[in-house]
């Protein structure tokens, strides 16, 4: 029962969506049926995100309770979750500080704390790329050499000063790079990878629908 039930559900849901793809969505039943299943994903998916929040609260609370290493910081995590979540759940009619829109604590914290912090986390990557460029990216093999040579050429081409210098050289280098590197070799490889990845994703989807693939259920 623990495995057959989910597998049957997966088959029925999956096959319905595959069949409705080949039916005209204007036929009365087809559109509503497939959208109903799509709605189920949205609703259940919403719960999985809430599950994630509860999980982070639980893990943080356990760390605090057991005074595990770094428990003090986990208090900050818990407080941040609550300070962000609770006001947003309260109706705006009570006070403009509640709800999710302009003037609310939720929006203020997002604009002034969450967004800038997320942007800063990503910005640190520029530093890592510089140090990796210097320490990790080595032309160990012929292929890696070709990778690095193309990389340097493209980095030169993508910026104004670099392009100006390229224009000084004979022939029309920027045109060549755009035409034969980006729209030539790169386009072809991306196309090959897209086709391959699409076949991989379709195969995995087929296995999930037919219940052959059950790792997501926890089957080893």
């Amino acid at each position, binding site marked *: 029962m623990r495995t057959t039930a989910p597998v049957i559900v997966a088959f029925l849901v999956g096959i319905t969506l595959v069949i409705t793809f080949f039916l005209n969505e204007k036929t009365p039943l087809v559109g509503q049926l497939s959208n109903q*299943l799509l709605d189920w994903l949205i609703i259940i998916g919403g719960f999985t*995100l809430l599950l994630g929040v509860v999980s982070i609260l639980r893990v943080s609370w356990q760390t605090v309770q057991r005074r595990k290493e770094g428990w003090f910081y986990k208090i900050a*995590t*818990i407080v*941040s979750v609550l300070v962000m979540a609770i006001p947003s759940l309260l109706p705006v009619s009570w006070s403009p500080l509640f709800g999710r829109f302009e003037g609310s604590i939720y929006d203020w914290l997002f604009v002034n704390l969450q967004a800038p912090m997320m942007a800063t986390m990503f*910005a640190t990557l*520029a530093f890592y790329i510089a140090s990796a460029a210097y320490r990790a990216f080595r032309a160990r093999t012929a292929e890696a050499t070709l990778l690095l040579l193309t990389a340097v050429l493209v980095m030169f081409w993508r910026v104004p000063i670099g392009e100006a210098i390229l224009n000084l050289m004979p022939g029309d280098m920027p045109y060549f790079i755009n035409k034969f590197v980006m729209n*030539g070799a790169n386009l072809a490889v991306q196309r090959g990878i897209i086709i391959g990845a699409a076949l991989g994703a379709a195969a995995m989807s087929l296995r999930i629908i037919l219940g052959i693939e059950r790792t997501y259920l926890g089957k080893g």
Partner: protein
Amino acid sequence: MSGLEIFQTWIIAFFTLALFSFLYKDNPIYKLAENIFAGLTAGYQVGLIWDTIIMQKLWDPLVQNDEWWLILPGTLGFLMFSRFFTKISWLSRIPLAVVFAVTAGVQLTTQLHGLVLPQMQSTMLSVWSSNGFVASLLAVVTIVGVISTLIYFYFSHEHTGALGITAKAGIWFIMISFGAHFGYTVMGRVSLLIGRVQFLVEDWLGTFQHFF
């Protein structure tokens, strides 16, 4: 610039510098900022999910237009919380099945119809292109590139003989494409740093003129 705006700019600057401090050394201020950040990200979702999914997609239709059948996905959604209790965690398998089956049901068709067919079609180019030598050369590069990439990712035969040569060509094409990728990615990362530095230099340092 009002007092509140200056205060806000300093708050943003504090947390921006706190996170950049990780570059120097992992430190308590960084850890604090990182944990606050993780909490805010989770908290943001609560407000958003409660409003746009639990209420708009489940509660309101159920109560106002009595779409009674929504009790089913609603209950399945609750079953996800069974994960916290090992004995009954298997109950979450049915909602899991729905989530993956919907994604799989849509992807099985759209990956082949929406990606494989158009990408195949656009590679069927004439080697003698009507508009000149450059276009023909480009067509040859594209065709050879696509086929050699596909052959490189072919696992059912050892890469020897003709297959080996094609796969070798494939890896060369792939390395050019990865090189282009590398160049573009460096540009992307640098732009994100520029975004933060623009804030620090233009907005934050800008507030200093109010003090001096």
